[in-house]
């Protein structure tokens, strides 16, 4: 791209009055392997405006922003910057033109200092060609202060920072470039309330300087408070767009899901008072301290907490992945001693783990092999596997979970994310569990599959299965759980019953130890 296109918006005068869009995209479409992620999206981003881009996982938010920032190329459509057509072929071109993207995944380099991280690729040099450490340190301090993180020492090794602090370093890195378009993908998910304040102040400052800002978040209250305009994406199309003050939380949820009922709790009756799972003073010596819980049979019990609160670790402890340091776990009144997940599965405790790719699927295996792996030893008493039983059970679960596939011999990696997740559910349920552990069960699946998974969970609980579900999505907890335990820094902050559960209440408790 010719460099004359790159004219950052003047910092002083424009304010929010300039009504010519900085970037204007028309008819943006993108598909991955036949899966349409974006279908003809039009969007204008104005200098001095904060746009909240909302939508479910898989709605196409990140893909759209990747295309605007040069990380991906659109299949169709055009993009204009200041009225001139542009086409970024790489992130570097986007950055050169003033577009900065702060990704949700942290990418600070742990072994380098904060100051070095902030100057990657453009470290100041002394006359002799060495890195000018002191200049770098001063500049780093200044940038950190701008994003409200002046408490972070620029000389500290970035890897030793908390997730939230690392996030701030990333934001500072983008801020240092004074971008004309700043894209923030879930920047606040690991920030403490205090850090959020500093961050918000920076966003307002950048807006007043005339930057166009896109803010992607799942926290609707934050979006409503911070943004000028709200854009909602669903299944690759923009379904609503308008000033933030003219919409409401309920309206946004309906727009996002297309189904007002998706997060609506259906009241259930839990007849049994039998205690299915009991944790007494459970510690693992590192991440969890003195946790006491009781889960009743047939209950859907939520586990909520911020990143690092110990949700996954607690499930790992029950499943035998992690060793118990002190305390006791009881399963239906009996002491549950597990040295290994294989023991746990045999005693009827199964898990749908977080991270479908890393911990869920066996990518080279067929759908049927993936579903039956937990049950092979139950299907067959002899050393030989029982193929006909596997086929029969697979067919039952294909029907009852609504798994869409051509044949159960096809590789699981050829299915969509939602269908893969249903196969992992089938794997867990096929093993005839007494206790089902779910860790972020709907991460990265489309809305349709999400609704299906919710009804599967509810149906199994209705049939008496006890479910413990860890989730970082409050609406999901509110929709499904009968009670929720909130963890904060490895300690139990409290257990909320159905009528005490509100988003505010849950989040306040989650921040208790912070």
């Amino acid at each position, binding site marked *: 791209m010719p460099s004359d296109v790159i004219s950052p918006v003047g910092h002083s005068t424009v304010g929010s009055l300039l009504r010519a869009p900085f970037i204007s995209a028309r008819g943006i479409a993108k598909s991955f392997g036949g899966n349409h992620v974006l279908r003809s999206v039009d969007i204008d981003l104005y200098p001095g405006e904060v746009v909240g881009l909302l939508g479910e996982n898989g709605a196409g938010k990140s893909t759209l922003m990747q295309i605007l920032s040069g990380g991906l190329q659109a299949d169709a459509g055009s993009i204009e910057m200041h009225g001139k057509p542009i086409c970024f072929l790489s992130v570097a071109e986007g950055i050169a033109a003033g577009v900065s993207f702060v990704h949700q995944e942290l990418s600070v380099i742990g072994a380098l200092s904060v100051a070095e991280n902030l100057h990657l690729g453009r470290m100041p040099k002394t006359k002799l060609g060495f890195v000018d450490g002191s200049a770098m340190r001063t500049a780093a301090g200044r940038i950190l202060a701008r994003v409200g993180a002046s408490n972070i020492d620029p000389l500290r090794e970035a890897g030793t920072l908390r997730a939230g602090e690392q996030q701030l370093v990333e934001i500072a890195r983008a801020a240092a470039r004074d971008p004309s378009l700043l894209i923030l993908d879930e920047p606040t998910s690991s920030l403490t309330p205090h850090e959020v304040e500093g961050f918000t102040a920076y966003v307002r400052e950048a807006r007043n300087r005339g930057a166009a800002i896109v803010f992607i978040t799942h926290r609707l209250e934050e979006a409503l408070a911070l943004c000028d305009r709200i854009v909602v994406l669903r299944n690759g199309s923009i379904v609503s767009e308008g000033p933030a003050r003219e919409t409401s939380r309920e309206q946004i949820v309906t727009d996002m899901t297309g189904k007002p009922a998706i997060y609506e709790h259906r009241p259930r009756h839990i007849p049994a008072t039998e205690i299915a799972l009991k944790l007494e003073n459970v510690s693992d010596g590192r991440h969890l301290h003195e946790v006491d819980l009781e889960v009743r049979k047939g209950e859907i019990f939520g586990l909520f907490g911020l990143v690092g609160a110990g949700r996954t670790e607690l499930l790992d402890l029950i499943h035998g992945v992690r060793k118990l340091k002190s305390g006791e776990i009881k399963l239906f009144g009996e002491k549950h001693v597990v040295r290994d*997940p294989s023991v746990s599965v045999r005693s009827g405790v199964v898990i749908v783990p977080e991270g479908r790719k890393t911990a*869920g699927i066996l990518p080279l295996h067929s759908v049927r092999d993936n579903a039956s*792996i937990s049950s092979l030893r139950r299907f067959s008493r002899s050393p030989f596997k029982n193929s006909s039983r596997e086929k029969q059970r697979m067919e039952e679960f294909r029907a009852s979970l609504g798994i869409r596939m051509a044949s159960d011999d096809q590789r699981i990696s050829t299915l969509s994310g939602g269908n893969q997740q249903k196969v992992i559910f089938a794997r867990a349920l096929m093993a005839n569990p007494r206790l089902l552990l779910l860790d972020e069960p709907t991460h990265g699946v489309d809305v349709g599959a999400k609704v299906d998974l919710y009804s599967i969970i509810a149906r199994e609980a209705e049939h008496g299965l006890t479910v413990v579900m860890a989730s970082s999505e409050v609406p999901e907890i509110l929709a499904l759980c009968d009670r929720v335990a909130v963890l904060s820094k490895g300690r139990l902050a409290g257990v909320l019953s159905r009528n005490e559960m509100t988003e505010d209440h849950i989040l306040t408790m989650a921040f208790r130890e912070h």
Partner: protein
Amino acid sequence: MGGVEAIRALGRQREASVLVMLAAVAIYLSFASDYFLEPRNLLNVGRQASVVAIVALGQALVIIARGIDLSVGSVIGLSAVVAAVLMRDTGSETVGLVAGLLTGLACGLVNGVLYTRFRINPFIATLGTLSVARGMALLMTGGIPVTFGGFAEFVGAGRIAGIPVSLLVMIVLAVAVHIFASQTVRGREIYAIGDNPKAASLAGVNLKRTRLFVFAFSGFLAGLGGLILAGNLASADPNLGMGYELDVIAAVILGGTALSGGRGSIVGVIIGALLMALLNNAFVLLGISAYWQVVTKGLVIIFAVGLDGLQRGAEED
């Protein structure tokens, strides 16, 4: 259309491409040498392939489970030496043979324990036992070969109805391991832990026990290979089996087993072992320097793995 699809599907099967290579070398040799198609020569190729193939059966399971066993060559030597020395000292053939097999099993268990209990990367753990086992074989014999005979000599050099016994042993074992790998629960679990160890473990597959099993089995078959090899030579040389790990791993990889685990077939491994033996035979028949043989072996491995990478790369795109 269906025919084209079928050929494409066959082309994606690694066994098929190795089979084509095997056929190409065989056809070439049948023209280049009058002696190649003689039954005596073909059976000799089979005999030469048998030890590599038997040890490769165990190695294949290890690699499918995402491990690697570099120690097999040394275990071959140590097992043979232990068997021969005990046979000489006790005068009992049974004691010698059983001790030889148990030595292989013990080496495999040590590898497995180093990996599963002490969490030493199998590449390093078996590199260590490679050296330790060889050193022990040299210590036990002072570096001098020990005579070895009796039943082992029959298995290593004998024939039943004109067919080498070692070839028959290989066929029986190959069928058994093939059925084990494809039809039993433990066999399927080996593939699962190679495909995604974390997922398989969370799904209830006992990771440690399965890993221990494959290493123990590999060691046991290496022990058996050592007895056959020494029996064939009627002598247990402490340097026996040196460098065998290369042939064995090459046979496994040539046969389409993925070094990254989770994928591979016993049929492919046998074809791979036959191809390695055929290449050896080719150099003898064509009278080419044995040094070229060493070079070629390396090139074949690089070629086979490179081909696999290119094919898989195309799939992933």
